[in-house]
């Protein structure tokens, strides 16, 4: 057996242009050397009964005999203050803060650590204040998801120390407050040369990089450190400030910066939150906490093994660094994007890298109770998936919950992403390469750019192209991405949306956390977890998260159709509508002598499948949009998404509910542009059926050929 996980890695950056450099980071569990080949992906689907995998080996980037070793991942978020204040001689030191623990653990969890002083939650759930080798323990375990004010004081003159804790909302039957004092049996000096850490225990510094352990799950708010009898704190941090930043200065002297590592959640409700607002921008003081998790990771910070610099003539596209070693073949994905570089090609394919990140390393098959029911078949696990389960330090996806059951709101690309590469996980990444292979087989010249480009460069990225193609499932969109695509459409652009459930969730990018996206789930939509009350606004920019639909931008308003249903059991076909025979849309079905389109395909045997979208003028489908085909025979396997029904009813499946359907939509736009939306993920995975000799391919080709013409679209078409 060839292993895909004995060597794993990532490219940083994930998305580069030709002549830029990406750094290959590898970690080996066994081999000591490896070789690297760079390959452009034409089709990443390795299924022998699929459309045929295809890779183009590049003449550049090949390297032999690279030395590799195991590289560690310091997962778990924390805040670090380095340098910390210097204390020479003090009579007393007092440390205060508010905490909201979220997980009991078989490991000790350190909330605060400065040299030989710390607060921790012990394995029995009790709070400890630790000084040197001595500890004071609270009389009762802390209750999870309850706010406590805690204080630890050391009196060096009296040679004693004490721990106070107070429950902010006392519960009958539990100790509301306690104070425990103890003599110091040994003499300790305060060792403050180490950094101050919130959310973990300081372990060591190696090459100026800190390693931590004993990570805490829960919130911390308003930490203050007092010395002697001073009423003014020596140092304090107000986490309700600079919520969008990756670091925060202390409140007093503005000298001691707390830097957030691995993105603990900001914009988190604090002990003052009373439900009067749901956005940190309205009342920052109600959002004074930081939520730490033992399994946060935004950057593995591995050493670079090889620098890869594509030459100027390298084509834009999906790429892998294929790592080969004794018994190992492991693919590390990256993108070469065209960005704003001029091209003779008139087609731009937008690789939905935000969606790839959102799903990266998903653990739902292991952790989510409803996964088998969603897919309606026994769950099977590949080597990559088993590895991900055992190695939680590789980080989670937007579909996962943290170890404390809270949802994952930040995901990044500076880590191995084992399901965004050739393999057995076909959703999104591999399905999208069906479109790439189709473009190549049909000899269309095209370029590739990414979501990150669109977010950074805006509509300028799109303006030079006659046609923009979005992929099988471009689900996660930032405001800038949405506005840019909308601008392109409204100014003569031609957009082909070859997927389903697109433009669904709102995300945010941040220059503070390169390669990371943020998404707050909210309380609607098909979700594997529910957002926490009051925490539905992105910390990166203050915008509300959740569904675009909630904020007046249902996908219908952008592309004519929007998400209606999942249908993972089997796929079906489209029937051409009477309206499609009009002069405006007849070109789409040129030379096609049947009204049934796509009763075949590589996913479930049809072109309507997996996730599907429907037309609805009430939700914003443009007044001039035309439904040119609608699905038939979806059956009981099609299930309506939650936001599509208002009161509970049994009639929610494709046998009973008309909203469980896919509508293919076409409309023209100002400036001679047009939009064609398939509204089904399985469209993309039917293009290559029968070596492209099929109606799905022909329809797509008819649209693309017309979209490439200079002739403007308009009412007199």
């Amino acid at each position: 057996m060839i292993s895909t996980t004995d060597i794993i890695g990532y490219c940083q950056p994930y998305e580069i242009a030709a002549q830029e450099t990406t750094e290959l980071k590898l970690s080996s569990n066994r081999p000591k050397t490896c070789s690297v080949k760079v390959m452009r992906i034409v089709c990443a689907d390795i299924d022998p009964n699929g459309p045929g995998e295809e890779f183009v080996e590049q003449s550049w980037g090949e390297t032999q005999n690279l030395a590799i070793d195991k590289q560690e991942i310091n997962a778990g978020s924390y805040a670090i203050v380095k340098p910390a204040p210097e204390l020479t001689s003090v009579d007393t030191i007092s440390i205060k803060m508010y905490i909201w623990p979220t997980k009991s653990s078989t490991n000790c969890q350190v909330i605060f650590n400065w040299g030989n002083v710390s607060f921790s939650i012990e394995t029995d759930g009790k709070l400890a204040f630790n000084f040197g080798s001595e500890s004071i323990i609270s009389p009762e375990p802390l209750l999870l998801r309850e706010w406590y004010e805690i204080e630890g004081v050391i009196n060096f003159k009296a040679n004693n120390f004490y721990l106070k804790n107070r429950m902010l909302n006392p519960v009958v039957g539990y100790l509301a407050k306690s104070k425990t004092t103890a003599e110091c049996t040994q003499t300790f000096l305060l060792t403050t040369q180490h950094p101050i850490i919130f959310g973990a225990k300081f372990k060591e510094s190696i090459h100026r990089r800190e390693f931590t352990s004993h990570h805490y799950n829960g919130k911390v708010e308003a930490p203050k450190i007092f010395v002697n009898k001073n009423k003014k704190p020596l140092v304090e941090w107000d986490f309700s400030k600079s919520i969008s930043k990756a670091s925060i200065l202390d409140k007093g002297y503005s000298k001691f910066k707390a830097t957030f590592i691995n993105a603990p959640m900001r914009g988190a409700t604090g002990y003052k939150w009373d439900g009067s607002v749901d956005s940190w921008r309205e009342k920052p003081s109600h959002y004074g906490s930081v939520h730490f998790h033992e399994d946060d990771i935004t950057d593995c910070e591995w050493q670079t093994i090889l620098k890869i610099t594509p030459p100027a003539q390298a084509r834009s596209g999906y790429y892998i660094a294929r790592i080969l070693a004794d018994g190992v073949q492991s693919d590390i994905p990256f993108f070469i994007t065209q960005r704003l570089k001029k091209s003779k090609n008139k087609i731009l394919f937008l690789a939905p890298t935000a969606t790839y990140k959102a799903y990266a390393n998903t653990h739902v098959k292991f952790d989510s109770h409803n996964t088998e029911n969603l897919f309606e078949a026994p769950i099977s696990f590949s080597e990559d998936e088993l590895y991900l389960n055992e190695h939680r330090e590789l980080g989670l996806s937007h579909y996962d919950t943290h170890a404390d059951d809270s949802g994952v709101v930040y995901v990044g690309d500076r880590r191995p992403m084992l399901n965004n590469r050739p393999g057995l996980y076909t959703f999104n990444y591999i399905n999208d390469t069906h479109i790439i292979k189709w473009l190549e087989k049909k000899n269309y010249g095209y370029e590739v750019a990414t979501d990150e480009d669109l977010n950074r460069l805006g509509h300028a990225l799109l303006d030079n192209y006659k046609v923009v193609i979005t992929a099988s499932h471009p689900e996660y969109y930032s405001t800038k991405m949405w506005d840019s695509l909308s601008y392109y459409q409204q100014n003569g652009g031609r957009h082909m949306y070859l997927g389903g459930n697109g433009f669904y969730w709102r995300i945010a990018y941040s220059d503070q956390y390169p390669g990371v996206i943020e998404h707050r789930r909210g309380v609607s939509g098909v979700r594997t977890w529910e957002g926490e009350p009051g925490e539905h606004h992105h910390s990166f920019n203050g915008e509300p998260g959740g569904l675009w639909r909630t904020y007046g931008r249902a996908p219908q308003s952008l592309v004519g159709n929007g998400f209606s249903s999942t249908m993972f059991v089997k796929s079906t076909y489209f029937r051409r509508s009477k309206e499609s025979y009009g002069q405006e849309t007849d070109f789409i079905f040129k030379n096609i002598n049947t009204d049934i389109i796509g009763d075949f395909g590589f996913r479930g045997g049809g072109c309507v499948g997996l996730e599907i979208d429907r037309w609805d003028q009430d939700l914003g489908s443009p007044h001039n949009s035309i439904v040119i085909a609608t699905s038939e025979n979806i059956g009981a396997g099609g299930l309506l998404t939650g936001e599509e029904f208002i009161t509970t009813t049994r009639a929610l499946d494709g046998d009973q509910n008309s909203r469980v359907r896919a509508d293919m939509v076409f409309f023209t736009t100002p400036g001679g542009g047009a939009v064609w939306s398939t509204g089904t993920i399985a469209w993309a995975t039917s293009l290559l059926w029968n070596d492209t000799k099929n109606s799905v391919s022909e329809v797509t080709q008819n649209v693309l050929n017309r979209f490439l013409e200079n002739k403007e679209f308009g009412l007199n078409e």
Partner: protein
Amino acid sequence: MLLYDPDGAIYNIDGTRMDLAKEYRDNLRGPFSLELQRVLDKMRTTPLKGRLVLLVIEPFKIFRLARLSGQRGVSPSTVQDVRYYSIAEAEWDIFKRRWLELTGISISVSDPK
């Protein structure tokens, strides 16, 4: 915050309904009668701990039966050395095993030819 209820599936399967077992054997991918759909919904929403799953031994060719640990980070444990050479074979066998576990009655319907 709403969490999953591992014991949320409360439907009771009538273990004597061999007609439902036969219906499933003859048409693994549905559509199903309402009663059989309820049986499948129950089977697919049992607690994660101990749920029967498949491990890919050789992609697209060989699968091995296993049970989820229900604990993050803990691998599934294999069930004896039960191997399948198609997903359809696995689906039918897992159905039979779950029927027995949930009802205490073995399926007397013969395997597909």
